């Protein structure tokens, strides 16, 4: 039965070229937008290198201090991490990294702006960078404040037009660093690892960071997946028990270990640490997608309704020759599904082109937006849902047609 439905759907779609084109256009365009959005989200949140161990990684992405009169929300401070994140249960490594900032260099008398990020040795073990040459700097380099740097591929080609960079020096922000490794470019949207140049924290010009309990650091914890909850609880207990150094202004700390997704949803819905709101971000994303799909869905329902009502005569004939209402609902839903899946395939294809163009345009530095299987499956799910959504109502309307009325060509 399904086979003949499919064949029939194909024939009808070929004959009704205008309706087919209008429907395909709508579905393809809708899917294009949704797929591009999904690819962007995927680029931010899904585990791609160097963040391959995302499921095992928690972060201290923000914290603050509060007192009777004032509070200060910012990021983690160096001494706080050193003091309270030691020997956490289930933690294998703790890495520290500073927020990247822009620095200028003038290698050939011409200005180059790069993103510089200061990190420690553990950073390279928690994250999974792919080295094109050389290797990362070590914990010892960090301890000894050696002027060494890891740079990305683009920086290598911008500074050293010919070939290798390891062993050569690079000047950044008035400091000279010896390049020890070159890694592949990291997309701009990967907030945690992204930078052009990574250097040891201890090479900072001033060591005032060593005194700030609330500063501008992220801390990453690579943990035993089985002991995540224990780890979070223990850290929360330590934060609750910790006392800020100046007890007159600030009486306690706040902040906790979170996943990247939890961090972003908190940033949007609870910037002052009210509570983690993972559900709301998903809800808002789903809501936005639905809002966007509203118009295309109504449009497709209208088109499908017309496509089906135009064929009242056919419905009458089929009913006369023994098709039951449910058989006809099946036939028309399959027709709508075929249309949606075709449109979906077209949309995914187009979004591939758009993503490729986006990657090439440099609008998002080092973007590596791809149609990976996950995004593709989302697109498929979207189009199937779309087909059902827009096909069921018209099919139901049609199935209620009385055969005698339908044969007279007078739909209700």
């Amino acid at each position, binding site marked *: 039965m399904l086979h003949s439905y499919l064949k029939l759907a194909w024939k009808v779609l070929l004959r009704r070229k*205008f309706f087919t084109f*209008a429907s395909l256009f709508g579905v393809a*365009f809708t899917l294009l937008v949704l797929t591009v959005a999904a690819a962007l989200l995927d680029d931010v949140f899904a585990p791609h290198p160097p963040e391959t161990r995302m499921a095992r990684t928690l972060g201290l992405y923000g914290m603050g201090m509060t007192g009777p009169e004032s509070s200060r929300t910012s990021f983690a401070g160096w001494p706080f991490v050193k003091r309270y994140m030691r020997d956490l249960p289930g933690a294998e490594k703790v890495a520290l990294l500073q927020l990247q900032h822009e620095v200028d260099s003038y290698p050939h008398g*011409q*200005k180059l702006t790069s993103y510089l990020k200061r990190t420690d040795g553990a950073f390279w073990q928690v994250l999974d960078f792919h080295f094109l040459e050389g290797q990362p700097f070590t914990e010892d380099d960090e301890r000894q404040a050696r002027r060494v740097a890891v740079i990305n591929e683009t920086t290598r080609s911008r500074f050293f037009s010919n070939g290798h960079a390891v062993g050569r020096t690079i000047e950044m922000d008035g400091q000279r660093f010896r390049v020890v490794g070159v890694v592949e470019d990291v997309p701009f949207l990967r907030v945690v690892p992204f930078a052009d140049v990574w250097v040891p924290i201890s090479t900072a010009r001033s060591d005032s960071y060593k005194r700030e309990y609330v500063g501008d650091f992220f801390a990453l914890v690579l943990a035993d997946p089985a002991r995540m909850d224990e780890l979070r609880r223990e850290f929360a207990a330590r934060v609750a028990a910790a006392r800020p150094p100046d007890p007159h202004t600030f009486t306690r700390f706040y902040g906790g270990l979170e996943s990247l997704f939890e961090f972003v949803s908190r940033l949007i819905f609870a910037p002052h640490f009210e509570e983690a709101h993972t559900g709301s971000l998903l809800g808002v994303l789903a809501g936005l997608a639905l809002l966007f799909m509203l118009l295309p869905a109504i*449009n497709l329902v209208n088109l499908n309704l*017309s496509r089906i*009502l135009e064929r009242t005569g056919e419905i009458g004939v089929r009913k006369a020759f023994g098709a039951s209402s449910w058989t006809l609902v099946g036939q028309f839903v399959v027709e709508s599904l075929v249309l949606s899946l075709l449109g979906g395939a077209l949309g995914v294809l187009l979004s591939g082109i758009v993503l490729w163009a986006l990657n090439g345009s440099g609008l998002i530095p080092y973007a590596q937006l791809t149609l990976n299987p996950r995004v593709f499956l989302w697109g498929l799910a979207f189009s199937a849902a779309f087909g059902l959504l827009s096909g069921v109502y018209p099919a139901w309307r049609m199935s209620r047609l009385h055969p005698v009325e339908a044969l007279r060509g007078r739909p*209700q």
Partner: protein
Amino acid sequence: MIRHLLKLVWHRKRSTGLLMLEIAVSFLVVFAVALFALRCVANWRRPLGFQWQDVWVVNVDTNASTDDEGTAEDVARTRQLLAEARSLPPVVATAGALIAPYQIGGSYGVLNYQNRSARMSVIEATDDFASVARLHLVAGRFFGRADDGSNVPPVVINQRLARALFEGVDPLGKVIGHGQRPVRVVGVIDEFRQFGELLSGGNVLFERITLANADERPPRRLMLRMAPGTTAAYEPELVRRLAPVAPGWSLSVQPLAAMRHSQLRLQMAPLVVGGVVAGFLLLMVALGLLGVLWQNVTRRTRELGLRRAAGASRAAVHRQVMLELVLVTSLAVVPALLLVVQLPLLSLFEDLEPLLVVAAAATALVVVFALTVSCGLYPSRVATRLAPADALRWE
């Protein structure tokens, strides 16, 4: 005729209902994009309040973790940096500020005068800021040396803030409460929209940095007005000359024009993306309407034939079909219009001018009517082209 058509539409309410919903939602989409775009255009045409051309910004990073506390040494160094920059031939004028235009961030405060109060953005700047940014004074003067002896700190406000706080009273010389301490208004400038041409801007207050006290926050941005025609090639030279004055500090140079360019691009992005998406949505709706109307009209060929047989001319039938379409569109748009009119009343968005809402609604009306009418033209022609006899025979 209209009543007759209204009856027709009412009897077909089930099939026209969805069509009307589609038209109403399309109206809302066009309205939203039009409102956004018109707001940008309106903002663009208003005075900016400063000149960004030939101004370079030197970002100063002292590499201390907090910017809140300065030392006497920091203040002295900043003064030396400004003096060094001023001595370079391509530099025409220099000033210091805590934040430059086109930069995200800034600080905010509340001003009180009698029983009124207003929120505004606070820009701390040195005396020369007015000449570097070429501000337009409309009353009084910018702060300067003349204020050195005064024990009430001088401030300069923009006209918008003056209106909000004084409403008709001359603000010059008035002492007003700013947080815990009083300040005196010495001048009024026409406007200063620090986030650029596309945003509407708000109340602005300039506070004086004297570069004499250790307890004031030293400026983090040096603003340099360059001789016209200075090229980017001079940037490394500038850094090379300034760096020795402040060892241990990080300096970076950016022309204000470049900052403006990237800020505008950032602010335009949602409009461009929204516009492109809305454009495609409309194209999709147009195709959909064409299909639906076509089918509607063919299905009614017999009815139309009947009207022709009853003596209606081809043009009359065509007119009737179009009138019906206009009627359906109007019925669909009315609730959407009522919804949209609530916007200025809701005060959900601040400074949403009613005129803009009206203009955006008018744009949306024109677009939606043009859309439906142009989608109806062809199907209606096809239906009325049939001879009455053929139309009646049609099944």
